[in-house]
């Protein structure tokens, strides 16, 4: 396993299954009276967030605290970054304070890669979402949730078809999921209006469709993506009403799914745009569970990257 987690593509098949297996054991902690383990006592995890986030930051914070790490939260707002400090200087400040891991959320795609490979700092770098690039821990928690519901918590995701619907262009969740689903043997199906698919998407290891109704009966999982208005500087579709009529998941489309299929959403949801409230709250929607699983998946990543003298070697993870 690599020392940093920058991209979902950094994980081999065995690495990914090991993270999921580890997360299964760590998820059980949530049911105990004492939700705390001494494993990372004395280690410092810095949440370095240059972009707004609720669930990812809280999830990483909860994960680190359950493993007894010390957590320092850093939000760019109200910090020296607003005075013009560079990523390099901020990172070197954290290094001087003795951070063992930096969890980085940044609006610039590639910032975690830069931090991990620049030699500025010696700590482990975990990508918590960079621009429109990747969000690997989200892909891991999504894979964990799919495996729990459809594969009985064991092995990989081979044979599953997963529809990823909506704003693929701006979605780091979609990129990381496409990579990880391929690694784990599942087939991603991207469904979006042509304007919301990135250039070169035909080279991705995924099927592509513009017609949601024809895809839904063939999939085991449907993952709705948020329409990211804040990243849209141009008109990608005529109106949100038209978008939801073509690509929104409503009760009628939900009925097209096979009986075992589950509905996922990385959050935050735009209720009434990409998903209707009755589908988001139905019993086959695992959206709230995804949040709980996020803590377990991030605990697994923190444990595997920080718990030992180095990440597990392939021999050990076999």
């Amino acid at each position, binding site marked *: 396993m690599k020392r940093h987690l920058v991209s979902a593509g950094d994980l081999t098949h065995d690495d990914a299954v090991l993270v999921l297996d580890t997360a299964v054991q760590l998820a059980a902690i949530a049911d105990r009276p004492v939700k705390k383990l001494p494993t990372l006592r004395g280690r410092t995890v810095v949440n370095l967030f240059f972009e707004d986030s609720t669930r990812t930051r809280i999830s990483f914070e909860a994960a680190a605290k359950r493993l007894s790490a010390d957590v320092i939260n850093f939000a760019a707002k109200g910090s020296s970054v607003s005075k013009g400090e560079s990523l390099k200087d901020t990172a070197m400040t954290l290094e001087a304070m003795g951070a063992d891991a930096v969890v980085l959320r940044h609006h610039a795609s590639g910032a975690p890669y830069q931090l991990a490979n620049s030699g500025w700092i010696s700590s482990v770098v975990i990508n918590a979402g960079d621009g429109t690039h990747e969000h690997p821990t989200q892909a891991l928690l999504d894979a964990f949730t799919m495996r729990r519901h459809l594969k009985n918590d064991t092995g990989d995701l081979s044979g599953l078809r997963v529809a990823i619907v909506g704003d693929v262009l701006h979605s780091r969740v979609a990129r990381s999921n496409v990579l990880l689903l391929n690694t784990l043997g599942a087939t991603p199906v991207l469904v979006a209006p042509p304007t919301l698919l990135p250039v070169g998407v035909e080279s991705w290891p995924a099927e592509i469709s513009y017609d949601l109704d024809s895809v839904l009966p063939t999939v085991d999982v449907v993952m709705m993506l948020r329409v990211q208005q804040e990243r849209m500087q141009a008109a990608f579709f005529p109106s949100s009403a038209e978008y939801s009529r073509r690509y929104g998941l409503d009760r009628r489309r939900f009925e097209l799914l096979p009986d075992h299929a589950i509905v996922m959403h990385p959050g935050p949801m735009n209720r009434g745009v990409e998903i209707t409230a009755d589908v988001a709250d139905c019993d086959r929607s695992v959206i709230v569970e995804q949040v709980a699983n996020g803590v377990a998946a991030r605990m697994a990543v923190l444990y595997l990257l920080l*718990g030992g003298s180095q990440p*597990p070697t392939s021999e*050990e993870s076999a």
Partner: protein
Amino acid sequence: MSERPEIGGPVESEAPFAARTVMSADDIRRALSRIAHEIDERTKGADVVLVGIATRGVPLATRLAAKLGEVQGRTVPVGELDITLHRDDLRLKPARPLLPTRLPEGGIDGTTVVLVDDVLFSGRTVRAALDALSELGRPQVVQLAVLVDRGHRELPIRADYVGKNLPTSLRESVRVRLAEVDGTDSVTLSGDPAGVGE
């Protein structure tokens, strides 16, 4: 738990001295039967839960529970405990995969927990197990049963039930094989007791 490479105990395949069998399958069976009877006698009808320490403590706990169940005419609950996250030597090695921790339905609050492991050596595994146990509940009493006690304690810990006391040198390594994990039942001792092989 039976090997500590940092001590420099030779790896079995490189050892100049062949592995010697110190307990056969029958010896293991007899030792477990005796321990089951001792547990029955010492716990005096208390609410006993057997908790195996992963990996090989788990099949041992299951076997002991079956024997104790025969003696007491009831089903003895069994749990399994993975102590990886509580180890004090985690940072000396690459991160290790985790194994399941499961407790019997009724939990362990107010019960007599007998921890079960294959080899008692430094006592550090048992220390970690006691920590792990305290996060899962509050047993009335905790006892320890081991198949082999090889000495060389580094912590003030002793076993309540011992299958076999095995005086060893730090250069030797004890290997327990159990049918459920290794396909066969045996305890072997290998390595160079006097250090003349170096």
